[in-house]
Each structure stands twice: as C-alpha cells, then as structure tokens.
C-alpha cells in the first residue's frame, strides 16, 4: 500500500518561492499525484495534479522525478494569503478497488 510523507510545517516570507516535498515510496505506476490547499474552517481545495515530469498552472508547479517516489509542490512568490495547510494525495487502483492515500499535511506560515 502506498504511503505519503510530508513535512509537518514550514515557514517562509512574502515574495519567496516555497517548495513542499511529499514522498510516496510505494506509488503504483498508474497513480496520479495531487495537491490540495486547506484554510481553517474550510474544505480542501484542489491546487494541481500530475503524473510525471512537470506540471504548471496559474498558481503552482508540480515537479515529479522519473522514479515518481516523491513530488514537489512549488509556490512562486508566496503572499500572506498562502498561509494554509497543504496536502499531497496519491491514488491507487481503480473503480471499487481504488484507495486514496492522503498525507498528514504541511502547515505553511508566510510571514511579512
């Protein structure tokens, strides 16, 4: 069964680039890697998803090395509003056999 590990917390300053890494040593060959952002008292919100190499959208980039045993969420030029908890998610299997493996979350604090 896949397992995900990510740092418990990180600190940064406004304007810096933040990289959060998630390890998933036992990821299956057909798994997606997905990242979510959660603010207090809200449900998680999808940020980005990838399968291999690099994916970029308007808010983040996701770097996935060739062995896919880890992934790095990159937030460019963070602001105070990026203070939140970030979760990585790995899926495994399909249909009724699908398993979702959530990380425990990385609490990012962005300071002025």
């Amino acid at each position, binding site marked *: 069964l896949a397992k995900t590990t990510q740092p418990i917390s990180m600190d940064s300053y406004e304007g810096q680039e933040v990289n959060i890494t998630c390890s998933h040593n036992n990821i299956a060959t057909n798994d997606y890697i997905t990242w979510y952002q959660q603010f207090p008292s809200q*449900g*998680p*919100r999808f940020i980005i998803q990838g399968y291999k190499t690099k994916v970029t959208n308007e808010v983040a980039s996701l770097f996935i090395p060739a062995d896919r045993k880890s992934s790095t969420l990159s937030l460019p030029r963070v602001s105070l509003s990026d203070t939140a908890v970030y979760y990585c998610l790995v*899926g495994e299997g399909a249909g*009724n056999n699908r398993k*979702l493996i*959530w990380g425990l979350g990385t609490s990012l604090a962005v300071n002025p």
Partner: protein
Amino acid sequence: NAGVTQTPKFRILKIGQSMTLQCTQDMNHNYMYWYRQDPGMGLKLIYYSVGAGITDKGEVPNGYNVSRSTTEDFPLRLELAAPSQTSVYFCASNLPGGDEQFFGPGTRLTVL
C-alpha cells in the same frame, strides 16, 4: 453550479442519538466521498462511492453507514453517536480519471 453542499453546518448530539449528514452535488460526478477531520489532523476516508448503487468502506467506516440511491446525493448516517465521532465531516466528489476532488464546506459535529 452550487458545487457540493452539506447540511447541517453544525450539530450537537447526545451520546446514543442518531443523525444523517446530507451531501448533494450538482456537477454530475460519479465519485463521492465522506471524510472526517479531527482537530489539527489530516483527512480520513470513511466511505466512498463510484456511482449510484455502489458504496465501499474507507479507512474508518465503523459507526457509520452510507447509501447512494442517486448520482447527486450521498448521505452519511450515524446510528449511535459516540464522543469519538466528534469531528468535522467533509463530503467531496469528482469525475473518474483523476483526483481533482471538489469539497463541501463541512459539517461540524459534537457528541456530548
């Protein structure tokens, strides 16, 4: 689209009482999920469904039941509430082929 809606927002139960947490999505998503999130912790999957008439257990199903009679609705039933079920409950949904889940605002449940 309203997205994923959950009712009620808050509820206090006495030990042994029962209740149903409602979840509805208007995006025609096949997959639906129920999670619980304890304070300061990550998400734990309770039950999920890949389509109407199909449900399956997640990581922590004990004490809960679900049904999926329509694509839109995925209610979660607590039969005999216990203090250990005090948590925030999130419903989510997505289309097959990825893990971009859309979350509801959550139901905050306290069992006293």
